[in-house]
């Protein structure tokens, strides 16, 4: 069945090319122009994914996320302006799945949409894989073993937990706050230095070149993203 996308965006030109791109990918879609209408349509039509512009004429786009999250976990991908990290973090912390900064190439947007749909499908079937592979890394959560190029790598309990959380949200940005909350607990959400040091250690253990990470990617000012589908050019 074709996925159904709700597009909440007030700018006609942006809607125009998004319409073309979505149609070309065989998505079904419905357009809403305001926050009010967006929330109503999300409830009425139960889309598979919401594509949300944060700058809406009637209300802050963040309120749409808050509204939808009260009753649904449907994936929400946010369109935001460049340089507004605060908005991105707020959107993600409110429960948005991902964001794309304007101006963006359509290819990038479609990739984010696909990743979000995949995640939600995986959650729906509750079939979290116990063995995950990315690049040189193979993570077996049942056996709690991590191997890099076939060799067992020792991770500390916190590193392991961090990797687990990143894999759970694979493909999407996880804010520093969310990571700290899920790994260290809600009382540690301000200690982002902790997190950075652990991510750096994890990169040293898992990445070929920790200064040019293929998988454990940084979203400056926002958080981290574990990219599973990046294949090494030389492998």
């Amino acid at each position: 069945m074709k996925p159904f996308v709700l597009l909440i965006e007030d700018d006609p030109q942006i809607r125009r090319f998004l319409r073309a791109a979505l149609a070309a990918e065989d998505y079904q879609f419905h357009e809403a122009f305001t926050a009010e209408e967006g929330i109503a349509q999300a409830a009425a039509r139960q889309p598979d994914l919401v594509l949300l512009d944060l700058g809406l004429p009637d209300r802050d786009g963040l309120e749409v996320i808050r509204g939808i999250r009260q009753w649904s976990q449907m994936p929400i991908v946010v369109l935001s302006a460049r340089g507004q990290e605060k908005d991105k973090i707020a959107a993600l912390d409110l429960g948005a799945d991902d964001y794309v900064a304007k101006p963006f190439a359509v290819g990038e947007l479609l990739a984010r949409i696909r990743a979000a749909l995949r995640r939600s499908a995986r959650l729906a079937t509750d079939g979290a894989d116990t063995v995950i592979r990315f690049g040189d890394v193979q993570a077996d959560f049942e056996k709690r073993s991590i191997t890099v190029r076939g060799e067992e790598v020792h991770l500390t309990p916190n590193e392991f937990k961090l990797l687990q959380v990143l894999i759970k949200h694979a493909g999407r940005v996880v804010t520093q706050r969310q990571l700290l909350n899920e790994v260290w607990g809600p009382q540690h959400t301000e200690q982002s230095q902790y997190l950075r040091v652990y991510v750096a250690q994890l990169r040293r253990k898992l990445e070929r070149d920790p200064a040019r990470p293929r998988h454990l990617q940084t979203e400056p000012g926002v958080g981290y993203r574990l990219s599973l589908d990046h294949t090494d050019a030389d492998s």
Partner: protein
Amino acid sequence: MADTTELQIRDGSPADLAEAAELKATRSGSRASWREFAAAVIIVGFATLIALALRPYLAATNLAMVYLLGVVAVATRCNRPASVMASFLSVAAFDFFCVPPYLTLQVSEYEYLITFAGMLVVALVISAQTSRIRAQAARAVERESRTQALYRLSRRLSTKTRVFDTALAAAEVAEEVFGAPVTIFLPEEGRISFRKRTSDQLLISTAEEKIAQQVFDRGRKAGKGMENFPEAAATYVPLKGAGRMVGVLAILPGTHGQALHDDQHHLLDLFANQTALAIERTQSQNAAADARMQMETEEMRSSLLSAVSHDLRTPLASITGAASTLRSQGEKLELAVREELLESISEEALRLSRLVGNLLDMTRLESGMELRRDLYPLEEIVGAALQRMEPQLAGREVTATVPEDLPLVNVDDVLLGQVLVNLLENAAKYSPPGSAIEIAATATPAAVQLEVRDHGRGFAEGEEKRLFEKFYRGKSEGVRGAGLGLAICRAIVMAHRGTIEALHRDGGGAIFRIRLPLDGRPL
């Protein structure tokens, strides 16, 4: 009073200094006179003992010498009245103990009267001369300490570039010199403000605001020890510059509650005058700097307008042209040409987007954007920048060398990332496609250094500084840009109190070197 003060400064009048020293002498005389008189009596007594011991061996006239020595001793130690008293006492003691008949003031031979007269005259001359020398020495010391205090003041004031700092430094030096709490009040819109003062402690009650204001308005001292408002807690001295009043200096009694002496008052006037001139100088320097900045701002605005209009219009023209060609003649064009036009639309749009982003960044940085600093591994910032630049760096060998043990840097990760992106963009623009680019980080005890090196044509000799100016474009041909990238880099690095410089690379190419202080102090 203030007028005479100015005169005194200009000619540095020795008469005034002498007067001050004299005042000091009288003052100390009245306070410690009993002690000095006692010393005089003891010394004369001592001279008498020696004279008595020598009496069997020497003629009486020679014994007078012992007393004269005593007078010299008194004169070098005690004040004038004490040494005059010692002179008379010596003559009397000489008569009483050394001139027969002993132990009476009677004189057996009249020629002794000549001895007495001579002795008295010599003793008085000695005491007069010696106390003059003493006064001169005291004056020299006084002058020296005053000169030192004023020198210290002027040295401290000369380094200050802000009015408030100048006032603060002056108050500090004055506190040291006078050993009493000093506060300087600066005016706000023509009124003395108790908010703009150098001391945070409310040592002076706001009730005295009126006095400070009056001193400011009239330019005359008032307060404790003065004619006007003697009941006040502090003494208020106007800070009168060459052109106008610049503030009021308030001095409280010292820690032991003692009031200022007259010569200290005199020094205080000199202090006030120098401070006022320094504040006035700082004000006019600041005014000049403001004017210069305004000129630069205006110049910047006009060059911004011309650069922006050109840089915005060019890509817009290409986009409009390509799009309209596709629309009107799309069917007649070959597929390859259509592809080319589409490519140019998307490239030019991206260029426009970068330009607008740069302009926004620059504006934000210039309006004093707040840094959101935290401790980051440099490796992470480098990695994120490389990731963002991946499309533009495709086909190049890019190496990033970041030592594992590099200390965390206290930076705004987004902004420092922008610096790296701009430098990488630059390197990609100004070096041949496919050539290598290196990023290397090293640590020194005080700073972390980050270099971006390329193998391009580099930049012309003498351009090292100009490269970082706004809207400056390198002399290389065939590359387009608004000339903002490096200016943004410099603004960001400077906001982090670091440095950025461009260097020539041996064998061709450019090196951009950033140094960020580890402790947050400027490099």
